[in-house]
Each structure stands twice: as structure tokens, then as C-alpha cells.
């Protein structure tokens, strides 16, 4: 085995491994408290490699990308979910999409909802889309809880409000939750399949539309991966503007979530006030960046628009106003006994649990797990920004609220620093033709780490793009956080995580 240092601003190495080494390395990294970031597969038969399974694992701030040839006719690989629970659903999705089996215990389908047959694997390159299957849903065996007075509440995928589809199966006694099992995959759109048929440089628009609230982070990670394959040097001003967009996206989402948390707590006043702040914030996006949610701003090679001096002054003063207004609201929220009674101790996720489950992003930081790409593996310009990580140990809704508040202040500080020292020069370079065979991009989005990996067969010019949402890691946390809480508190707990459906299902 030989490790190859990839030419990326991230400290990442790649290696081809065999089954024994795949497993041995995983065991070693598991013992060293490593964290599995993503597990996926690709059909590399055009390049003569058969089916390939990939994993990215971070261990002691070093990033390892290992690839395993799983064979051609009856592809298999050793499961990692016994070491890294976060891998379990990704292994199931891997089988649904590519038919690569593993020796894990749970073989229920995850992304496949009978829209295609059990013997069809849409991400195989020889898959041709037939007429959509309209057969009735096959029963999905949820794990049931037995006992006196235990019953189940099935919620979703269609809800009473206008929200995204997900199914939640509660086993309860009265109003107390004994067990929660999620079922997702309802918004699977086949983005990876679509990206295979697009030129790499055009896929950014689609990547930025998988999850609209994280469009800047998605497009940014995608651009990083493509730039690595194309060996494209991004101008410094573009890198700084990207960071600016990511931080603005973070603030916009935190404001929206804080408002929604107030709403779920029954404090409509907070909802309106945070809604107002968010609306003003994204109206500025619309004026300066051409899109309220920043779509299509980040493109492979740089960013689509530059900022002039007036815009910079405006963005800077907007941060000052926002921080003042948010501090005032935080005073009200922190001081509101009724709201705090709902937040404190609700949906608690202990630090040990968060670590064992491989939590990422905001949810991890609220449980005391120091996990922030901007601090642990800072890419320019974060390498000189000295980002302060927001860490809380409560693990409850209140902790996730506190982390959101602190991240708003920190992001506002970062934005002002970025604006004050914005490098001059162009904001976009020509991306050039794809040449390399591996590309990887990662961005600390507001939910957590978003990863984009490109594998390419240079001879045939075919490629596969895998886009990983942090919700893969964090959806299972919710199942643990709600245990022992009350059914009517679930929406509040769910909102405090606010995980992605579309980003997860893709």
C-alpha cells in the first residue's frame, strides 16, 4: 500500500487497499478515535477497476481516503458499521444504488422505496431507466417495542404542515418516547446519476440545488473537488469571497432556526423578530449576489460576482447592526423562563454518545465534541482567521441554541475580518480541462461537514461524483436524543438539529 498525498488544501492522503487492509486500517483508526466522514461506492468498470468502495476517515486531524476494489460480478466489501455506526445507513444506501453488498446485519433497503426493483441498481453505468414501478410499497419491518401499554405512533412522510417528507416511528408509553426509528429516502432524486452524465464543470449548478439552505457550501465543496481534478488555482480574492458567502449562509440559517425554535416553544414574538432579521439579511444577498439563497455564486474556478467598495461597506455595517439586534434577542430568549424550561434538558445527547455515533457539525459542538473543519483543517482563508470554535457541553436544545447564537457572533466577526482585508485581483480563473483522477472538496457548512468526492477515469472521460451531507451522521443522533423525552417535545428537538432531507436523500 502506498499513500498518495493529494494536491488539496486539505491534509488528505489516498490509498488503494485490499479487503484485509481495509478492515485493519478501519480497526486501527477506530481505536485511535477516528471519525468516518463518508462511505460510498462507484462503478469504475469503464476504467477497468470494477466496483469500488470508498471511505474517508479523519484520524488525529489527518484525512485518509481509502478505496477498495469490490469485484465485478458479485461485489462485496467488509462492513465498517460495527466500528463506525455512522456507516450503517451509508452501507445500506450503497447496496440500494450499486448492489455492492457487505456483511452488516441490517440489510433493509434505505434509499430504495420500490421506485425501482430489488435487482436494479441505478448507479451502475449499464442501468437503463425503465418505466417507473408503481407497485404497492413493500412492508418495511420497523423494530418494534413490546410491553404493557406500549404503542406506536407513525408520523409522516406526509405531515400536517408544509415540511419535507420523512417517516418517524415512535414507540411510546403514554406520551413518553421509548424508541424512535427514522425512515428517510423519500426525496431521492438520483442526483449522482444525473451528475455522471454532465460535464464536471457544469455540475456545480446542480450540486448547489441539492439542499437550498446550504447551496453555498455545496457549490463550494463541489468547486473545490473539480478544481483539484482540473489542477486549477483559484485567485485569493475568490477564496475570501467564498468564505464570506459560507459565513453569511451560516448566519442566515442560524437566524431562521432560532426563530423556528422560538415558534416551536410557543413564543411567536421571537419567530417574527428572527424572521425579520433573516429576511433583511437574505434581501441583501438578493441585491449584491443576485440570489436570496446565494445560488450559483460559487462556481468552479472562483466566484461569479465581485463586490465593489460600496457593497463592502454595506456588508460591514450590516454585521454591526445584526450583532446588536441578535444580542438583544438573545437577552430576551435567555431570560424567558417559559422558553428556557422547554429548552433546558430537552433532547439531551451526551458527549460520549455523540462521539460514538460520529456526530459532526453544530450538533457535535453542542454536545462538547470539538469538531469544526474551519479549526481542525483550515483551508485558505480560514488558516489566518483564527476561528473560535463554539463549544457547549449540555447536549440539549438549550446548548444547540447557545451554539447557534455564538456562531452568529463569530461568523459576523469573520465576515468583518474578511471584508477588511479582502485581497485584490480577479475573482475567477479558467478551470481548464479535467486531468486528474481524484478530487475532493470539503466545507464546514452550517450543519456540519459537506464533502464532495470526484473519481474519474482519465482514459474514458467518465466520472462519478459523490456528495455527502452531514445529516447522514446526524440523523441517527436524533433517535438517541429523544429517548425519554415527551412526544410533544419532538418537534422542538428535531428543529434544534434541523437536519436535511433533500441533502441526505439526494
Amino acid at each position: 500500500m502506498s499513500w498518495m498525498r493529494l494536491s488539496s488544501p486539505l491534509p488528505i492522503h489516498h490509498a488503494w487497499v485490499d479487503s484485509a487492509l481495509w478492515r485493519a486500517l478501519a480497526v486501527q483508526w477506530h481505536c485511535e478515535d477516528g471519525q468516518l466522514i463518508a462511505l460510498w461506492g462507484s462503478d469504475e468498470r469503464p476504467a477497468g477497476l470494477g466496483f469500488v468502495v470508498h471511505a474517508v476517515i479523519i484520524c488525529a486531524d489527518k484525512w485518509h481516503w481509502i478505496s477498495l476494489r469490490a469485484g465485478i460480478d458479485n461485489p462485496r466489501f467488509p462492513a465498517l458499521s460495527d466500528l463506525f455506526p455512522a456507516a450503517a445507513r451509508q452501507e445500506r444506501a450503497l447496496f440500494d444504488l450499486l448492489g455492492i453488498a457487505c456483511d452488516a446485519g441490517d440489510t433493509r433497503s434505505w434509499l430504495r422505496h420500490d421506485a425501482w426493483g430489488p435487482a436494479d441498481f441505478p448507479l451502475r453505468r449499464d442501468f437503463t431507466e425503465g418505466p417507473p414501478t408503481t407497485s404497492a410499497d413493500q412492508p418495511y419491518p420497523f423494530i418494534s417495542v413490546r410491553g404493557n401499554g406500549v404503542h406506536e405512533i407513525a408520523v409522516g412522510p406526509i405531515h400536517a404542515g408544509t415540511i419535507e417528507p420523512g417517516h418517524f416511528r415512535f414507540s411510546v408509553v403514554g406520551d413518553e418516547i421509548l424508541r424512535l426509528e427514522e425512515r428517510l429516502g423519500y426525496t431521492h432524486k438520483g442526483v449522482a446519476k444525473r451528475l455522471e452524465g454532465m460535464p464536471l464543470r457544469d455540475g456545480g449548478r446542480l450540486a448547489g440545488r441539492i439542499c437550498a439552505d446550504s447551496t453555498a457550501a455545496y457549490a463550494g465543496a463541489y468547486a473545490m473537488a473539480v478544481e483539484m481534478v482540473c489542477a486549477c488555482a483559484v485567485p485569493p480574492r475568490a477564496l475570501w469571497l467564498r468564505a464570506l458567502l459560507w459565513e453569511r449562509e451560516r448566519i442566515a440559517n442560524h437566524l431562521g432556526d432560532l426563530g423556528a425554535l422560538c415558534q416551536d416553544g410557543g413564543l411567536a414574538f421571537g419567530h417574527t423578530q428572527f424572521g425579520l432579521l433573516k429576511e433583511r439579511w437574505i434581501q441583501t444577498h438578493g441585491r449584491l449576489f443576485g440570489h436570496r439563497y446565494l445560488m450559483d455564486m460559487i462556481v468552479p474556478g472562483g466566484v461569479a460576482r465581485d463586490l465593489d467598495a460600496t457593497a463592502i461597506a454595506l456588508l460591514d455595517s450590516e454585521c454591526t447592526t445584526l450583532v446588536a439586534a441578535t444580542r438583544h434577542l438573545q437577552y430576551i430568549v435567555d431570560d424567558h423562563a417559559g422558553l428556557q424550561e422547554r429548552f433546558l434538558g430537552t433532547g439531551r445527547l451526551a458527549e460520549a454518545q455523540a462521539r460514538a455515533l460520529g456526530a459532526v457539525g453544530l450538533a457535535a459542538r453542542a454536545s462538547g465534541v470539538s469538531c469544526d473543519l474551519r479549526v481542525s483543517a483550515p483551508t485558505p482563508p480560514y488558516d489566518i482567521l483564527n476561528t473560535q470554535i463554539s463549544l457547549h457541553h449540555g447536549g440539549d436544545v438549550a446548548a444547540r441554541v447557545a451554539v447557534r447564537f455564538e456562531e452568529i457572533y463569530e461568523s459576523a466577526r469573520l465576515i468583518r475580518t474578511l471584508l477588511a482585508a479582502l485581497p485584490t485581483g480577479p475573482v475567477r480563473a479558467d478551470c481548464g480541462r479535467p486531468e486528474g483522477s481524484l478530487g475532493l472538496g470539503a466545507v464546514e457548512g452550517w450543519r456540519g461537514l459537506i464533502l464532495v468526492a470526484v473519481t474519474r477515469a482519465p482514459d474514458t472521460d467518465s466520472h462519478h461524483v459523490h456528495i455527502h451531507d452531514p445529516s447522514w451522521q446526524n440523523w441517527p443522533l436524533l433517535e438517541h436524543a429523544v429517548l425519554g423525552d415527551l412526544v410533544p417535545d419532538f418537534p422542538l428537538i428535531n428543529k434544534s438539529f434541523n437536519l436535511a432531507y433533500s441533502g441526505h436523500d439526494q
Partner: protein
Amino acid sequence: MIMNLFVRQIVQILLVIAMAPLLMGWIRQCRAWLANRAGAGLLQPYRELSKLLRKQPIVAHEASPLFVATPYILFTTMVVAGAMVPMTTTRLPLAGVSDAVALAGVFALARIFAALAAMDLGTAFGSMGARRAMLVGFLAEPALLMVLFTPAMISGSTSLVVIVRQLARHGIILYPSMAFAAAAYVMVTLAENARLPVDNPDTHLELTMIHEALNLEYSGRHLALIEWSVAIKLFVYIGIGAALFFPWGITQGHDLAALPIAYALLLAKLAAAGAGLAVIETVFAKLRLFRVPEFLGTAFLLAVLGLLVRYLFGH
């Protein structure tokens, strides 16, 4: 004379039915103002009702006749309750035939039908809502009765007409016992009408719902009738509160000239109560479900304190 009584009764019933959505609109508008929103206007509930009334109701195949009958039963019971409360005059034929305890019984009847209908289809949310509604109901009802007993002890009767006459005759005297009862009554009103902090009438999160969960399977005119009866119920509760704690201005004689003033005063009382409700709903967050028993326990305790103050000290 008989005709006169009859007309008064009809006028009050029509008033309750017609004005209840306006009260809802007023509360929502006040809440919007308090939250710095423009609001949808006072007439929004009427628009919603007319929209729902024009829509075809969808009823599940498995629904029993009880499911279809319940919206009509709820509407009727609330109208009957509204007819029984002396809001502008004590000279009402129906107000004399029943007392406050019977009124509590009418509300209980409506609650039982609502819960049965919610469980009729066997959906998880209907049963969950029914369970929670009964939890709130069985705690609120004794508190409500205790509240009613304090003015009953002062006036020597459980009849609302007698209570209004006696209390209004005493003039503006502050009874400490009635202050306790009034505080308890506000808490019971919030719980019984599914308002914050007990229940959030604006929520669309099915897992947090209490009252809304009962109505999830209803649509079209069925839902319109339920929404309307919800508005009437709140109207009647405020009417009872006004009769018990602010009986001044309710006419007692046959003089028709005093009626317009009585109606104007009723409007003022409703507006003030609606605004007060909006303030409460803005200031308080929703309670954790298992805190609701404590909330209603406090209401019960206050009502009992009111009774004790009256019984032991005669205030």
C-alpha cells in the same frame, strides 16, 4: 312580554354566532400587533369559514355516523351554551332554566363527543389528541366548578342570573375571594379553549397538538363548523367571565332602552378580554405537556383559596 323575551333570546343567539369569529380575528390581530406583524385583519376568520363552507368535506370510508354528526353536535352545544349565559340581559328564557353547573356539563358533553369522534377513525393522532384533550379536560373541569362555587356562595345560588343580579346589586366591591376565583378562571379559560400556554392554536406540528389533533381528519364544512364552535366556545367563556366578575351593565329590567348600552359594554368587555388574552399568549411560551397538570392544579388551588377566603372570612 313573552314576545319581547323571545326576541332578546334570538338576538343573543345570533349575536354569539355572528360575533364569535370577529372575536377570534381580534385576538389574532392583537397577537400580530404584539409580534410586530401586520396581521391578516379582523375579518380573516370569516374568510376562512366561508372558504371551508364552500369546500366538499372528505370523510374516510371507515368513519361511523358519529364522526359526521360530531361537528353539528359541537356547534349546537356551543350555541346552546351561548344562549344560556346572561351577556347583556338577565331576562333570557334559557338563562333561567339552567345553572352554572349545567353549563359546565354542556361543555363536558361537547368534549366527550369531540374525543369520541377523534378516536373514531383509529388514527394515531386522533387518539393522541383525544387522550391529551381528556387529560386537560378532567383537570380543568373541577377547577371550573370550584371557580363557579365562589360567586355561588356569595349570591346563594348557582344560577348565573341570580349571581349576576346579586353581584351587580352590590355595586363595585372588591371581593378578595372573587379575585382568586378570577385568576383561576383565566387559567381554566386558557386550558379549556386550547390557548397558550397550554396548547398552541397556531401550530401545524401534529405531535405537539392537543385540540388541533382532534380535528386533523375533518375538512370542508365539518371543519368550518368545528372552527366556528371553537370561536363560540371562547366567546361564551369570556361571556361567563364577564357575567361572574364584571356583571355591571347587564340589564335586569324590561327596559329596552338600556339594551344598546349593554351591548356596547359587552363589546368593550370582549375587546378587553381578547386583548388581554393576546398579551398572555405573547408573553408566555407553551408549557411542556406534563406541566399542564401543575398549571391546572394551580388553577384549582386558587379557586379553592377563593372559596376558603369566602367561607372563613366572609369576604
